[in-house]
């Protein structure tokens, strides 16, 4: 298995390099086909590599070149990398199916050859990041990834609207990269080499201040990529300004790199001994999630809304990671495992449904010509296929069963219920508060995506657009169905997914999540610490053995048992739930059909109080739907409503009332605006020095000389 994984990986590199070289040589059309086919093959290879490693036991280790005086570049594919590799592969498979259709359509506007080159370059650098075995490989490929991402973001026509978006992303990426480099330097201070194993050894001897320093630097450095408050202000602008072919990759693959970085640095390399860093990550993650979803709920541009929603999901994942670190540093291994499982599960889920939603948004934009949800409506009649798949994506992200979002939200919230095991009361309170914030976030997420789906697809058409595309191309349909099916499978069969994720979780957390979450009821014959005999007996008495030959050894139920003092059991099974729903629906259909026989249904127009026609301007807009949220959270939004009422005769007669809402983002208002203003103030003060008078400059030189002499005299 390990050999298979390693082989797949190496073949991937070869194929991708060939594709990279080929795309420089061939024509545009051929480049598009190359993306489709070569990209597809590469993605499948990645999935193969990831899957193979996750089923095998040992890491794949491959030394590459040795750079004289610095160290050896190595590749190491361990379980954590494999999880992210598999997810990246699946997302890339969908994107490679999706992109050619999109690019074929707009071939005249984008130089496809350039895109193909950058696409493959990005693929290689992403995989190198994920499979880097030493700091040098990691950092070099990270930098490559940043630059290539910047080039890809600036590739299309969307940047006309916001030409600085890519540049801001690059600037933030570089700042984050700098922080990460410094973190690595701190860790590598006393290390024998640059490989991860060497760093792991030296990190064990770090002082607690150094640990904090490494944590903060790495956290915010990688946090730039995944979108943590306050370093995420580039994310909505950049996602909105990126071309529609690239945004799915941006949201599905590069976002995950941030999580991978945090986990690798703070979860794997540097074992944090205090509970502080974990709590910090937890609080920051929760706040990020809340801010993200608030802005998503009130945003009417489809792509920007999805970008804010990515921030929200990133917050949830980072909160899970924070809980994991907190539990692990308090040496409570089992909840740490559950927390890490939840975070990894959510990361995988997020890449799937967010990619699906972004692809859907791209299709909508090309069909309708606008991204403004206030102008949409009634798309379900025009794009019926897309509406089904998009609905699957919305349900998944709103954490509705039977999709995957439900499982990972459930697991995340369950970890917060475990906080009773922590030692200090303050920590428990913090956990409870963050749990409450995440619950609020989950509720707002449902609002947000109900609004998205309803205002875009349902109702009557509000805008003046015309359709330019008659439905989805076959490939785009296939790519989105693939992702939707993956969402559904991960939702229905979590017991398998957890078993697979456990390979990554167990080494890091020190306990196996599978045994806790999916205990082997069917296969355990005698009791052990986890499963007391009485419990097993009850279980068998309830007849739970029925159907045992048909079900997998560990059953299809997710289970969380409380402690001895609190022996409560939380159980959940999406698989059985889906089966039950299906049976009920079938029975209901048959029974109602029998009872009502043949009833003629008469259709008519919408009842609207007797007016001649229900006009589009009389239906709710997306802004109107989310207005209560805006009003309730006014303190966060602080909108400035500029009203210009045009009067003709007097106040009594108004022919037009123009209102504009001007808002400054919370993060800008609290962090960057004051910082910017402070710097501006300092600059203004300093500008006073540049008065242009020659004698003044001469006097500066004199004063400086005197000061130097004085200091020299003192020393």
């Amino acid at each position: 298995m390990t050999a298979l994984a390693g082989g797949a990986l190496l073949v991937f590199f070869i194929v991708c390099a060939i594709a990279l070289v080929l795309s420089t040589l061939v024509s545009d059309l051929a480049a598009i086909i190359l993306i489709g086919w070569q990209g597809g093959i590469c993605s499948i290879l990645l999935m193969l590599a990831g899957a193979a490693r996750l089923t095998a036991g040992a890491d794949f280790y491959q030394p590459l070149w040795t750079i004289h005086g610095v160290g050896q570049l190595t590749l190491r594919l361990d379980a954590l990398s494999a999880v992210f590799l598999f997810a990246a592969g699946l997302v890339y498979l969908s994107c490679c199916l999706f992109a050619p259709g999109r690019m074929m359509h707009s071939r005249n506007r984008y130089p496809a050859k350039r895109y193909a080159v950058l696409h493959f370059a990005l693929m290689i650098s992403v995989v190198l990041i994920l499979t880097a075995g030493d700091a040098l490989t990691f950092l070099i490929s990270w930098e490559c990834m940043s630059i290539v991402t910047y080039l890809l973001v600036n590739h299309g026509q969307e940047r006309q609207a916001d030409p600085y978006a890519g540049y801001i992303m690059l600037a933030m990426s570089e700042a984050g990269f700098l922080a990460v480099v410094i973190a690595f330097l701190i860790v590598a201070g006393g290390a024998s080499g640059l490989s991860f194993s060497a760093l792991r050894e030296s990190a064990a001897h770090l002082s607690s201040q150094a640990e904090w320093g490494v944590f903060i630097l790495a956290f915010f450095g990688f946090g730039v990529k995944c979108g943590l408050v306050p370093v995420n202000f580039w994310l909505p602008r950049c996602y909105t300004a990126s071309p529609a072919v690239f945004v799915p990759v941006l949201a599905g693959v590069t976002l995950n790199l941030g999580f991978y970085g945090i986990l690798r640095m703070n979860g794997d390399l540097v074992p944090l001994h205090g509970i502080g860093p974990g709590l910090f990550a937890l609080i920051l993650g929760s706040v990020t999630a809340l801010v993200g979803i608030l802005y998503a709920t009130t945003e009417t541009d489809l792509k920007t809304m999805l970008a804010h929603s990515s921030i929200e999901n990133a917050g949830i994942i980072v909160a899970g990671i924070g809980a994991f670190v907190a539990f692990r540093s308090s040496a409570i291994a089992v909840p740490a495992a559950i927390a890490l499982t939840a975070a990894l599960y959510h990361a995988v889920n997020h890449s799937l449904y967010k990619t699906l939603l972004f692809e859907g948004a791209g299709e909508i934009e090309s069909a309708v010509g606008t991204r403004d949800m206030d102008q949409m409506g009634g798309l379900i009649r025009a794009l019926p296929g897309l509406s089904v798949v998009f609905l699957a994506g919305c349900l998944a992200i709103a954490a509705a069963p039977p999709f995957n979002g439900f499982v990972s939200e459930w697991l995340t919230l369950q970890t917060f219920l475990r906080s009773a095991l922590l030692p200090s009361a303050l920590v428990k309170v913090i956990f409870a508060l963050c749990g409450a914030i995440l619950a609020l976030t989950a509720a707002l997420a449902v609002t947000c995506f109900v609004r998205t789906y309803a205002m875009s697809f349902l109702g009557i058409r509000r805008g003046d657009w015309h359709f330019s595309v008659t439905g989805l191309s076959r490939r785009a349909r296939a790519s989105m169905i693939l992702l939707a099916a993956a969402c559904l499978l991960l939702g229905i069969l979590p017991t398998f997914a957890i078993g697979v994720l456990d390979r990554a979780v167990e080494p890091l957390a020190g306990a196996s999540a599978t045994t806790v979450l999916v205990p082997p009821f069917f296969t355990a014959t005698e009791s052990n610490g986890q499963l007391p005999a009485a419990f097993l007996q009850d279980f068998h008495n309830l007849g739970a053995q029925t159907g045992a030959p048909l079900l997998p050894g560990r059953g299809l139920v997710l289970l969380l048992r409380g402690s001895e003092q609190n022996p409560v059991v939380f159980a959940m099974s999406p698989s059985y739930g889906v089966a039950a729903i299906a049976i009920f629906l079938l029975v209901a259909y048959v029974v109602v059909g029998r009872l009502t026989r043949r009833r003629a249904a008469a259709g008519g127009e919408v009842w609207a109080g007797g007016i001649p026609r229900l006009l589009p301007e009389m239906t709710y807009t997306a802004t109107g739907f989310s207005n209560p949220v805006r009003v309730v959270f006014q303190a966060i939004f602080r909108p400035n409503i500029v009203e210009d009422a045009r009067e003709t005769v007097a106040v009594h007669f108004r022919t037009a009332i123009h209102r504009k809402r001007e808002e400054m983002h919370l993060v800008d208002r609290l962090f960057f605006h004051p910082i910017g203003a402070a710097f501006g103030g300092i600059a203004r003060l300093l500008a006073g020095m540049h008065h242009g008078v020659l004698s003044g400059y001469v006097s500066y030189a004199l004063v400086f000389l005197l000061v130097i002499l004085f200091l020299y005299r003192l020393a």
Partner: protein
Amino acid sequence: MSFWFWNGITRGIQSTRYPAAPETAPGVSPGRPVATMFASAEEAARAAANCPVGAITARDREAVIDLGTCIHCQRCRFGNPSTVHWGNDFEWTRWPAAKKTLEPLPAAFTRSLHIMVVDAGDCGACLHEIKQLNNPFYNIHRLGMFFTATPRTADVLLVVGPVSENMREPLLKTYDAMPQPKRVVAVGACAISGGVFGRTFASAGGVGMVLPVDLEIPGNPPPPLAILHGLLVVTGRKEVLTKGETSLI
């Protein structure tokens, strides 16, 4: 803090027992002119001339009333030599002249009736009397009748007013929005015959000009109990007492 619950309980039950028992409280119905036998044909003719809308016809010595045209101006009752007799009942519902029968709603609706009202140019009296059906005196909820907010769930359409032109389309849309089985009841003299407004460029002259009417409730306005009687007829719980153009009593 007012204790509304206690206030309500101590106020007692005000509801009438109709249709289980007759209702004879004063003021419940304005009454109506009834066919009167005069001493001579001239007197009958004089009585007929009293009516400004021609609801009284003299047939030899008898003055006969068309209740559907009567606008309750009471000019035939007071202050002129040939006054007609006055009856105090309120069960005035009748079939429209063109139809001789009504198919009441199926049995499922007998104790569960949903009513939609459309004001199509009404002066406000008929509409107000319909609204009084919800007050504690008449309380149609005890009979299983309710007013709905939307025609989609309505069984009976009560139309008041002579159907002003501006309300013609909304009335038709309301009717179209109601599912089968449905019945249309014209309430009040204006709805039956146009009342004092008649048929002009601004009013259609009665609901019958716009919709197929199943039942008519004469009066200007018919008191709430008359409307209640009409609703009971629609559900088949009561019979029509006045038939066609002449009154039986």
